[in-house]
């Protein structure tokens, strides 16, 4: 399989990264189809977050290739990868605490990326509408003028998802989107995710199996940087290797 295959949006091939000899990700292959919601699971230290880091350019790979819509991401800078259509949400909510919710969303609005673009950027009605629209989706309409530092943990997670949403990426990568949430928040988040993954591909790293079941199209299990199993949730759960790894711990 390769980039010519129009049915794939992302093909990761033979991806390896080593930190002073320790291979955090080792010869990984991963293929994502359009509109697929892929969940990566695995025990701690399996390399899940590192895979996301490698795809979005946060960590430089030692070898391998990551092709997204025919572009080799490994050779691109982070911001170029974003412009290509890849969005990334971090494990801990990563919002700009000194700015308001509105400003947080505005910064993610996909225009004025260059320095002079940013200087000339004006808050037009169009921008305002789009931000309000997204704020509606992420349940933060009433908090637009509030400093994001004052949001609850869950609200910050939503805000970050909203920031991705406004970018409208074709591939969305979420790192533990429901970690640390209350039950009520989690229900709302699942609802939110289900709504936004509809028309794009998503890679989710998650521990919460119930949540995984709710959203996953396919599941990839990593163990010690290597692919352990891949398939539907039911298929993976039945895999003896997977059981071994999880129970063995």
């Amino acid at each position: 399989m390769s980039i010519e295959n129009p049915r794939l949006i992302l093909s990761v091939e033979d991806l390896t990264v080593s930190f002073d000899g320790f291979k955090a990700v080792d010869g990984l292959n991963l293929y994502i189809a359009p509109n697929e919601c892929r969940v990566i699971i695995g025990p701690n230290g399996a390399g899940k977050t590192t895979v996301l880091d490698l795809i979005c350019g946060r960590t430089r790979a030692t070898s391998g290739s990551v092709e997204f819509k025919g572009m080799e991401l490994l050779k691109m800078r982070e911001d170029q990868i974003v412009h290509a259509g890849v969005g990334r949400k971090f494990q801990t909510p990563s919002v700009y605490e000194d700015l308001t919710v509105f400003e947080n969303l505005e910064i993610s609005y996909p225009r004025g990326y260059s320095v002079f673009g940013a200087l000339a950027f004006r808050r037009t009605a169009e921008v305002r509408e789009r931000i309000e629209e997204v704020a509606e989706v992420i349940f933060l309409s009433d908090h637009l003028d509030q400093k994001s530092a004052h949001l609850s943990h869950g609200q910050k997670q939503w805000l970050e998802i909203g920031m991705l949403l406004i970018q409208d990426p074709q591939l969305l990568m979420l790192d533990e989107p429901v970690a640390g949430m209350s039950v009520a928040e989690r229900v709302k988040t699942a609802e939110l995710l289900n709504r936004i993954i509809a028309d794009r591909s998503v890679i989710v790293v998650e521990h919460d199996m119930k949540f995984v079941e709710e959203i996953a199209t396919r599941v990839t299990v990593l163990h010690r940087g290597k692919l352990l199993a891949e398939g539907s949730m039911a298929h993976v759960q039945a895999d003896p290797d997977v059981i071994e790894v999880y129970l063995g711990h």
Partner: protein
Amino acid sequence: MRDTTLAASPTRGFLTRTELAGAAILAILIFLVLPAILDPFRLNLYGKYLTYAFVAVGLVLCWGAGGILSLGQGVFFGLGGYCMAMFLKLEASTPEATAIQSTPGIPDFMDWNQVTALPWWWEPFHSLTFTLVAVVAVPVAFAFVIGMAMFRRRVGGVYFSIITQAIAAILTILIIGQQGYTGGVNGITDLRTLKGWDIRTDDAKEVLYLVNGVLLFACLGIAQFIRRSKAGRLLIAMRDREDRVRFSGYDVAAFKIFVFCVGAAFAAIGGAMFTLQVGFMSPSFVGIVPSIEMVIFCAVGGRHSILGAVWGALLVNLAKTGFSESFPELWQFGLGGLFIAVVLFFPEGLAGLWNRHVAPLPARLRRRPVPPQVPSPAAAPKKPMPPASPAGTSPAAAPAE
């Protein structure tokens, strides 16, 4: 505390009411009060202090907003000042005025150092237009090169500070060592006229003071424009969550380079005005000590407030002059104590005090909702400060948690 000092709410106009009031007070002070009450000597002194305010305003952008603490702003101040000084020196070194030299028509210090012809890179400084362009362009180009090299490689935090400090040290040694071309440790002295206009007279000093004030307000305007723009918000965002900005699709390095260059340009204008008002330029403004003193002007004023920076520059220098006139030995204690006090007790400087105690109270109360409880400690592990984060990418001046 920082709620009140950072861009209050950008949904409003170019200036908030408090900022407008602050700017108005400053303008009245600089353009009306000081010229009215001070004799030319004191006015010239204030003019000199205000040239440091340019640097401090640049630092507010770089450090306060962008989290980039440069300990080498003296480099840009000096380069701007030297460009101006070269022009003035050439004008003062007419063949008639330097007739006693073995090579008339070149600056006196060159003659003393057996330089027999004007070096080629001095030639363009016969032109005022070129000089005015160079005053800004040379330091900015230098800042651009440093910025490219460092921010592209994601050098940040204390690494950046130390490297800029080293650059300041290198440039000082270089200027002192190449005295035939630079005037050495004495600097370029005895500057007299600008296009025939004697800059040493009281009248000229007053005019220069006013020009300085106008330029300062122009820089304040530019700084405010940048802070108000999306670029300004991006800088704050970058300081706190550099990665997030990067993954929102911005080329973080480009913004840092930009703001570093703006800071350099401001410092350079200050340096040029310094040369004009003080009448000479020497390597002692390029080195480590002046560079770090410029940081304290900014810190005292409030690292997040561009108006505060001006006040900081004014007041610290005023205190320095006052102190050293009455208790020279105490001044060092005072300055040292000021560094520590500002860092420990008033990290927002004078602007913080102003905003807390002077700015209208009701408005503040309205904008301060009770922060909701943060539920999970696990999701936000308190990371140990990564002191040695290899590339220094950690948000440089992460403010107090």
